[in-house]
């Protein structure tokens, strides 16, 4: 009934869109909007994408704009960067970011640093995108989170969407951005549907890079997360609410440049901080957040040490029981919240 009312009023009701479709639509619209945008990567064209994210695009845009590459990451990432230097706007897909390690020199040394080294003569408008972090049962070599590695480097923007609105809006922003953007998706999120508002469905809807979003308001403790873990935080918050603990859940959306101001404002309000990420603890996203909180105005408002919930510090095992215990579960988040609040 509500949907019908919406429809009659505006002609474009809020609809349920999976993250995969949100990414697909974002790319479709940007390909249409700007002739210089093109997509390259393994299986992106005729296979419709290894994870079907680029479904239908090759049929619509053809060989010139949707390019299947051989399995040669270093080579095709370099080619993508070179094409960006010469006036095109490539989207370079890594089948997973684990494979980007083979090409990481091109991402960092050829893409990220060039605008600086050339003192502004040579810009590199490129997007590197693909699934990042743990999946299900793919074991150690296919499960690494690269948010911290890429987030370390000046000259890059690093984005990590959680839901469909994030995916759609941030990908459009990334493609329109004149700088190298590393776009970290999550395979387990591809099939998850979320409601997209009418506004979010518009062709010019973008989500600004560098701004975090408060997904849930709360007064007792701040939870900061990115990507899939945002959902876990919201689930934990729902359970904790029944016990009278109100969590404020912040979706980082962008790893670099990080919106520390939003986190600080929240911590000043709640006096407690727990960061949650899927990646390893050492030198990770949470470590950076804690360091910055210490160095900024929010430190004096902390009633307890800021704490990180992270993946276990091991290569990802295969067996389901082991894998399940290698990444933060909702109970781990709840446990850390209660410890921090001393309840």
């Amino acid at each position, binding site marked *: 009934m509500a949907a019908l009312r919406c429809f009659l009023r505006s002609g474009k009701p809020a609809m349920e869109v999976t993250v995969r479709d949100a990414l697909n639509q974002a790319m479709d619209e940007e390909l249409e909007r700007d002739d210089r945008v093109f997509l390259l990567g393994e299986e992106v064209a005729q296979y419709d994408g290894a994870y079907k994210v680029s479904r239908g695009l090759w049929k619509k845009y053809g060989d010139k704009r949707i390019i299947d590459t051989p399995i040669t990451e270093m080579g095709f990432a370099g080619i993508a960067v070179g094409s960006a230097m*010469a006036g095109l706007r490539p989207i370079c897909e890594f089948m997973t970011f684990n494979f980007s390690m083979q090409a990481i020199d091109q991402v960092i040394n050829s893409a990220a640093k060039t605008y600086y080294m050339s003192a502004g003569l040579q810009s590199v408008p490129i997007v590197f995108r693909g699934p990042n972090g743990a999946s299900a049962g793919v074991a150690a070599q296919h499960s690494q989170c690269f948010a911290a590695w890429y987030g370390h480097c000046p000259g890059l923007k690093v984005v990590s969407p959680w839901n469909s609105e994030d995916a759609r809006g941030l990908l459009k922003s990334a493609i329109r951005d004149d700088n190298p953007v590393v776009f970290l998706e999550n395979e387990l999120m591809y099939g998850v549907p979320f409601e997209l508002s009418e506004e979010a469905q518009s062709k010019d809807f973008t989500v600004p890079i560098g701004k975090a979003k408060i997904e849930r308001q709360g007064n007792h403790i701040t939870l900061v997360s990115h990507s899939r873990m945002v959902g876990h935080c919201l689930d934990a918050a729902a359970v904790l609410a029944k016990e009278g603990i109100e969590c404020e859940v912040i979706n980082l959306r962008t790893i670099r440049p990080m919106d520390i101001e939003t986190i600080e404002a929240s911590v000043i309000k709640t006096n407690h901080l727990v960061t949650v990420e899927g990646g390893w603890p050492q030198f990770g996203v949470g470590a950076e957040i804690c360091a910055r909180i210490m160095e900024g105005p929010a430190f004096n408002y902390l009633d307890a040490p800021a704490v990180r919930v992270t993946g276990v510090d091991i290569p990802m095992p295969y067996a389901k029981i082991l894998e399940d215990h290698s990444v933060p579960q909702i109970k781990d988040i709840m446990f850390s919240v209660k410890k921090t609040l001393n309840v």
Partner: protein
Amino acid sequence: MRKMLTIISTVLRGNAGKNGARAVVAARTYADFTQQATFDIKKCDVHKLEEGPPLTSTLTREDGLKYYRTMQTMRRMELKADQLYKQKIIRGFCHLYDGQEACAVGIEAGINLTDHLITAYRAHGYTLTRGGTVREIMAELTGRRGGIAKGKGGSMHMYAKNFYGGNGIVGAQVPLGAGVALACKYQEKNELCVCLYGDGAANQGQIFETYNMASLWKLPCIFICENNKYGMGTSVERAAASTDYYKRGDFIPGLRVDGMDVLCVKEATKFAADFCRSGKGPILMELQTYRYHGHSMSDPGVSYRTREEIQEVRSKSDPISMLKDRMLNNNMASVEELKEIDIEVRKEIEDAAQFATTDPEPPLEDLCNHIFYNEPPMDVRGTNPWSKLKSMS
């Protein structure tokens, strides 16, 4: 006019010059020079090609003087850089190009400025041929604000229009160059990309990945291997199972070219450019050349090769001498005229060096600029939490 007066006065002084006893009785005017001559050039070895570049090259007097001037400028600029480095006014890495001038000048003669070019770190010569000035290049080496990259790039990171550097990571420039070629094809402007690498880089995996994609997608890319016989301190025989670099592209046609002869390089480049522009895909050229300096300024260059070898190349194959002899022996220029060019070049280099040593270093305010393009100003963390530096686009 000044040149003519010099010539006239020389003649009147009865100095017949080195041109052999020419019967020069009257003042030699411009019209007395041969305007154009055709020279035999070395045949190129070919790989997967029916025919190679022509066996002769026609040179106009005007072009000859232009190539001479450019090569001499390049030579003197590199030697001046050597000097400044030893005085510690240039620091860090400095990879000099002297000996290889015919490559940069010959290549540029075979393409247009609207074409694109990318190379590795031995890049000062190409920065010049692609439109950089000696002043900007030298000031970049000395790290001053008047440098071509405002002092922020240094020797290995110089850029100009349609020139993508200057790249420090061995081999990384090759996929980049193919990417530029992809953009050329995509944008349908009939432009191509010249993509250079050395004999050391030629063994890099990413280059073979690039050969594959460039060939599959018929990218308008001229791959050029500048084989100067040594990858840093390792001779080609010790680094490569196959030193036939022009064949290493396998399914890509190749040419092996005398890289010390500017005319040979020019004809080969024109041949390669025609091939590319006709839509046949990439082509590979190996330029056999030689560097007089070591790999970089921290390498004396004599621990892995003999001084005799270096001297032999200098006396028998120097690219500038070769062009000079050709022009003089064919009455395309006079000794005085070339000397005049030498003097002008020396002055240009001196002026540039003067600028490069007196121009101030970049202002500290520039430290954090140029992180992102087309972005509002942002804060950058300094060395400590209280240090918030400003970054402009």
